[in-house]
């Protein structure tokens, strides 16, 4: 076991100073204001600035557009980005898709894209979910039909977060409607400026923007096909299993679990703790001196601590559900001030609790619902049998 602070070499310490100075410069209040306004999870200025340093893919060699950072410096960078709440959603989908591009795309296309991705000029989003599909990605219905050297796409996708800020979507399509469910899928990297692509904003009450994307007779070159025809499920697995937390080096420089929303939960807890230190009850006593407040706040601290150290997919479920239950309790503890909006007279620390309460709900759905993960835990951690449903193997739509 090693939970100790990491001793930095002089070079690593210098790097940290460099990161801090650079982020102080580029992560301005305007960046946060932009994020509150758009919910994009992306800021083009910050993204390009990070790209210019090779810090979007810091582990890549400098020659490839990365920064050739060691694991410690990568962690230093990641922590500093998190500390400043840099919006990174589109960067994260770009990274997921890149793994598939590297593995499955036409080598020439991949080689052409790599420096652009590293620089931040090319970004990817996920075209996974059908409007009616929910968590059952393999039930995709968006049709792709071959037409010479091209494919013609018709259909739509929901939850293509970042589409309006990306150049390509990593799209799952059905190419053989007669084959068993998982054997009739093909993946494409579809340029989002193709004729027939229409992007429609969807806003969440968590303050985020995502998109519905409609494809009407969209023509895509076969060179943008990823992996073999009807082998889309295999093509998809790479980035999906990366999203599910596999494949991290086991050196203690990654988070233990796939905690979801825990930073937002902690930020709200900390704000409530500070609030309690300077707020009096109607009877004139300090909130911070109320044993009942402390008892209940302490329970939330325990939940957040547990969320951080619960490993793997179990941490993903634990963190999200603890956060959702815990933020509701935290709002109760604080009272009506907790739900004042950003900018309202009396809002606590810029409305951090209000935001945390709204944002919490989505964390139980992103990247697979908590139910999907509970099913995975039941089968893969506990070895419980899987329930066979009519559409587990067949394409039933």
């Amino acid at each position, binding site marked *: 076991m090693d939970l100790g602070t990491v001793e930095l070499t002089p070079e690593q310490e210098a790097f940290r100073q460099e990161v801090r100075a650079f982020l102080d410069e580029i992560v301005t209040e305007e960046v946060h204001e932009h994020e509150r306004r758009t919910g994009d999870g992306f800021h083009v200025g910050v993204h390009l600035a990070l790209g210019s340093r090779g810090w979007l893919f810091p582990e890549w060699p400098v020659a490839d557009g990365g920064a050739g950072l060691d694991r410690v410096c990568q962690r230093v960078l990641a922590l500093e980005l998190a500390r400043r709440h840099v919006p990174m959603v589109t960067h994260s989908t770009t990274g997921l898709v890149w793994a598939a591009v590297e593995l499955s795309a036409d080598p020439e296309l991949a080689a052409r894209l790599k420096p652009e991705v590293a620089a931040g000029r090319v970004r990817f989003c996920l075209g996974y*979910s059908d409007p*009616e*599909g*929910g*968590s*059952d990605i393999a*039930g995709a219905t968006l049709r792709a039909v071959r037409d010479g050297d091209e494919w013609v796409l018709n259909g739509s996708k*929901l*939850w293509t977060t970042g589409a309006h800020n990306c150049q390509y979507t990593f799209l799952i399509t059905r190419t053989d409607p007669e084959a068993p469910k998982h054997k009739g899928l093909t993946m494409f990297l579809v340029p989002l400026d193709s004729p027939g692509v229409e992007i429609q904003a*969807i*806003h*969440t*009450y*968590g303050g985020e923007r*995502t998109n519905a994307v409609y494809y009407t007779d969209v023509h895509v070159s076969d060179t943008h096909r990823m992996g073999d025809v009807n082998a889309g499920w295999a093509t998809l697995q790479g980035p999906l299993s990366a999203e599910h937390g596999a494949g991290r080096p086991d050196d203690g420089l990654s988070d233990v679990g796939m905690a979801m929303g825990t930073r937002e939960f902690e930020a709200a807890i900390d704000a409530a703790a500070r609030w309690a230190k300077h707020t*009096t009850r*109607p*009877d*004139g006593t300090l909130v911070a001196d109320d044993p*009942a*407040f402390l008892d*209940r706040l302490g329970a939330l601290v325990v939940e957040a601590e547990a969320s951080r150290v619960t490993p793997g997919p179990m941490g993903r479920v634990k963190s999200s559900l603890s956060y*959702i239950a815990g933020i*509701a309790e935290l*709002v*109760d*503890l*604080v*009272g*009506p*001030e*907790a*739900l*004042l*909006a950003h*900018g*309202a*007279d*009396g809002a606590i620390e810029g409305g951090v609790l*209000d935001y945390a*309460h*709204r944002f919490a*709900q*989505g964390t*139980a*759905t992103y990247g697979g*619902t*908590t*139910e999907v993960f*509970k*099913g995975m835990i039941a089968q893969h951690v506990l070895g419980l049998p899987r329930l066979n*449903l*009519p*559409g*587990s193997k*067949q394409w*039933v*739509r």
Partner: protein
Amino acid sequence: MERFELRRQDFRLDDDQQAVREGFGDFFTKQVPSSLVRDAQPLGFDADLWQRVVAMGATSMGLPEEAGGDGATLVDLVLVAEELGRVVAPVPLVSHVVASRLLARAGGAGELLAAAAEGERVVTLALQPGVGGNRQLVPDAAVARDVLAWSAEGLTLHTLPEPAAHVPNQGSTPLAWFDPAAGERTVLAAGPGAEALFRTAVAEWKLLTGAALVGIAESALQLGVEFAKSRRTLGVAIGALQGVAFPLADVVSEISGARNLVRKAAWYAEHEPATRPDLPLVAFVHAARAATEAAWVSAHTQGGLGFTVEADISLFFLRAKGWSVLGGDPGADRRHIAAALLAAV
């Protein structure tokens, strides 16, 4: 605490009560489509709707006949509040009814009471006893010039030249800061009797808000159930899966219990106010929890869609907490509830 008392447990509504429930249920359902709720955001007040609510008699029905009311019981009022909550109607009815009843009990301010009964002036109530001149957030104070408040001085009517500035909030309610030094002040009553009137009014506010939260929870649940019936995964409706069905079953159980608790509390407050003064708080605490759970479970049942602004569940999710939080920490209510038990055993 008499655990084995011989009492009826008859929760059936009589014909008049049934008529109140159906009448207001039809009214709110027809008059308050979700588009109206959205259009009233962020203030949470629709003046036209308010006029129609007044015309339905909702502002006067709970007042004694001598104050121009119909002497409706608290049971009637919780039935109305539940129907209001079901459509999250953007009107300050709960605060207004409770404050008007308090005004009637305290006496004085007859002109205001008459105007309140007619809905011409909106009255509200500062829920926290005022100490040391601290300001507090008061429900519906952004649309009310008249605020009733309790402080060491007694029960005081504060009449402001205009309603205080709206403070935007998650539940889109007409919340505003109330400054106890503001406005023209009239002490209506003082002493322990006056404090008891204030406490009763706060309990009534929590009871009616609890009823509204039951309505919110019920509508949230229905949205989740409809989705679970129609959305399919892996060849079955998702509602056939226990992972989806069981939380919804838990929610309907919580709501059914909360509804009965609200009605029970209303019955006692109306017929035997001294027997179980803690019951309105019990009902509020349970209803607030049921609404929180219903909103989250239903939103989550709807997956990503349940998290979008355009889905109607968003209206209920944001208000389930946004309305209940106006009453302050339910922990304070739980402490009163426990104190009542300690006194009884």
